[in-house]
């Protein structure tokens, strides 16, 4: 049962849990007295209008207008995978493949289970020009553990951890008050696997947080970006990176960022030639 719960929670869509919370708009629609949320509802309505307008622009083929609309939403703090996904599509249609890759990656960072974003990202990657490593296929240097923890839905993982964690303590507390020996023993044996799962979920959660905090990636967003030996504009270029290439960001040095390619080559590129995922 615990295993089933774990599986269900782990693969729950990341947005499922927060979506369950009542939205201000929904409360208003239900006619509940809500004096304060009135301006907020107006803001939401405005943002939704921008979103729909951007979608219409996209359908009409006016990609620059669609891009402007989606970016307006992001600038307003509405960082949502639906917005980044649509923006990535718009960038792709507008011929900005680097930015398309960047925003598909952002979408997947928020919601690793977004199959459409993953699919479109793969299609874009097939069209990328990379004169350095055209045959490797891989554009990232993620070790397997990192790929794994990043593929887990962040909120689903957190919920799994919380449920198991509270469950473990609940059983432990109950065991203290149980006087009959068989039940006492049963609760102990129930808690052994629960504790193991808590450790596993905790390790995954910790690994994901570690990956988010310590390991950063960037995507080249300009057609070509020289990878230089040093953090100066006069430093010797090692090679040219092309838009859409995902590189690992190691450190920032002035206007440059030190990056590592999937083949281990390191160098410096201008920060404004790449976008952080």
């Amino acid at each position, binding site marked *: 049962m615990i295993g089933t719960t774990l599986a269900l929670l782990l693969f729950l869509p990341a*947005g499922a*849990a*927060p*979506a369950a*919370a009542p*939205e201000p708009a929904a409360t208003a629609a239900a006619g509940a007295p809500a004096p304060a949320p009135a301006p907020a509802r107006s803001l*939401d309505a405005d*943002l*939704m209008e921008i*979103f*729909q307008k951007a*979608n219409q622009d*996209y359908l009409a083929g006016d990609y620059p207008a669609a891009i402007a609309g989606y970016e307006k*939403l992001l600038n307003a703090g*509405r*960082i*949502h*995978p*639906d*917005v980044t*996904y*649509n923006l990535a*599509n*718009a960038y*792709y249609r507008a011929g900005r493949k680097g930015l398309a890759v960047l925003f598909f990656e952002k979408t997947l960072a*928020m*919601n690793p289970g977004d199959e*459409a*974003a993953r*699919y*479109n990202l793969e*299609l874009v990657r*097939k*069209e990328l020009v990379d*004169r*350095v*490593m*055209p*045959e490797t296929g891989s554009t990232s240097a993620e070790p397997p553990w990192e790929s794994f923890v990043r593929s887990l839905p*962040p*909120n689903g993982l*957190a*919920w799994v951890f*919380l449920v198991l*964690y*509270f469950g*473990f*303590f609940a059983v*432990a*507390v109950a065991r*203290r008050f149980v006087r009959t020996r068989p039940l006492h023993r049963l609760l102990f044996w129930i808690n052994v696997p629960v504790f193991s799962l808590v450790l596993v979920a905790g390790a995954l*959660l910790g690994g994901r*947080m570690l990956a988010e905090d310590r390991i950063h990636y960037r995507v080249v967003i300009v057609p070509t970006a020289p990878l230089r030996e040093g953090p100066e504009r006069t430093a010797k*270029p*090692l*090679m040219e990176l092309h838009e859409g290439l995902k590189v690992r960001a190691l450190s920032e040095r002035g206007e440059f960022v030190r990056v590592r390619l999937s083949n281990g080559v390191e160098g410096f590129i201008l920060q404004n030639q790449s976008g952080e995922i």
Partner: protein
Amino acid sequence: MRSARHLRAVWFALLAAASPAAAGEVSFSASVDRNVVGLEDRFTLTLTVRAPDLARIEKLALPDVGTLEILSQREQTATTFSFSGGSQDFRRIKNVLIVLKPTREGATTIGRATLRYGGQSYTTEPIAIQVVKNAPRAKSGRRAPAPGMSPFPFDDDFFRSPFDDPFFRSPLDEFLGQQRPIDEKDAFVEAYVSPDVVVQGQQATVTVMVYSRIDARIGETRWPKLDGFYAMDRDVSGARTEQKFIDGERYLYKLHQQKALFPLKAGEIALDPVSVEMVLSASPFSQETRTLKTRPLKLKVLPLPEAGRPADFSEANVGRFTLSAAVDATQVALNQPVTLTLTLRGTGNIHQARVPELPALDKFKRFDPAVDVQVQKSGAEVRGAKTVEYVLVPLATGELVLPEVKFSFFDPVDNRYRTIQTEPITLKVTASANAPPGTETGREVNLLAGTFKPIRFESTLSGYGHPLYRRSFFWPIVAVPPALWLLLVLGGAVSRIARSDSPRGRARQAISRARAHLKQASRHAARGMASEFFSEIKAALLDGIEARLGAPAQGMLLEEIRRSLLSAGADPADADGLVHELENCDFGRFAPASSRGQEMQDSLQRSRRLLQRLTRNAGRSPS
């Protein structure tokens, strides 16, 4: 351990090489480790030069080895000294070890080797070798060391052939390696471009080779800017290190890197040198990092000929290609998708080769194609396939024809343009209701396969932000259960301490002790240990009395106990019974011979009953 062995090796080498030869004398000799060898055997010819200064060797010509085959050759050098008449003589010895293998049976002769030293010539004597089919096996053990070298028994791998490991250097080689500066002939890199005359778009391959005659490690490689080319790295990870003699010197060399270049414009193109960083070591005590550069290369790129250029030709289509077309079904139902796959296969810049567009198809709805490129990573020649998959949905019934697709390219081998085309494909499209037998009318085909997934029109635009574990409340919530648990444990401990100081707590402890004594008494009864049994029973009864009285009963007289119990509200019969049982215990303890097993069981039963009644109101009864 290994270092100690090396030191011993050096010491023995020095002693063994000490020769009575006069100072300044030069000797040159040849020897083999055996004269009768089997057809499949290997043996070693050693040429030994003893001279005061090896640098004065002008020439050392190897002998004619007749029908023998030279498998490998390496050199050893050593410095020796000897004492003669109170003066010491330092000399150098150089051994050239040549591993030979017979090629045919019979007698053969190794000719004279020639040494030119200080303007004089020296020659060795010819050596007769008898090659038999099956030579008697050499005695097990180690081969004799080369002259001047250590007679100390080294590991077998000391004499291992360099063929076994191209980078092999014996410990003695390393230890006695000449302390000399690294010169430019010790290691060098070479690059060449092949072919050096190509037409625009045709592949030219630049290969970088690394040569070294000393220990070397390859570091970073820097290529020049390859503007004007579409460049592809070739996988040379399978390249092996091999050896080669250059000007009589043995070098190890390796294919280091290879790039396929597809020139994007015509003209004379100069390629700057490729830099390879190498860590060179002529001895274990010296190491040097050097950046070696290849010589500049030149590539002549001819323009694509104007004559005969097809109208639909694209400049990226240079190479040798084949084009094929296939559909996944030739009989489909109306509005059911069918996949048309165009496959361009061949050698050339397959990444940039442009597969022609499908002509307009009136009777089909066409989705954007999915393009996939597969290129072989290894091999100097770039070879691969590009597939373009179109999802087509027939909009009419009947026999619909997918027309031929033409593809024009320039063939650099035949030096002419060629146009190839696929065969037309006929599809039989039936009405949905009357799908032909065997047609998968309900098959799962993703119409959007190969096309972009559409944007999202429905969204709440909410519910996302920071993940749960980044919210401010997450970690405080996580801290709650252990905090509660800690409180619970601490509370329990405090409660226990508080209870142990109360009369009820003390009574409970006394009952607990009484229970333990009864359990122990039961064990003694089972073993027939009467004295111990009655001691435990007495202790249990006294604990029971303490639980009832709320004060220790140890040291009280029996009558005093009886009175105290009565005043504490105990049943007089129980008080009497207890006193009687205590007396019985004293009797049993001091007169064990009269005690029997049954008596002990009876006493145990009585004591249990008495304690149960006595402690009924004081806490949990002992059982």
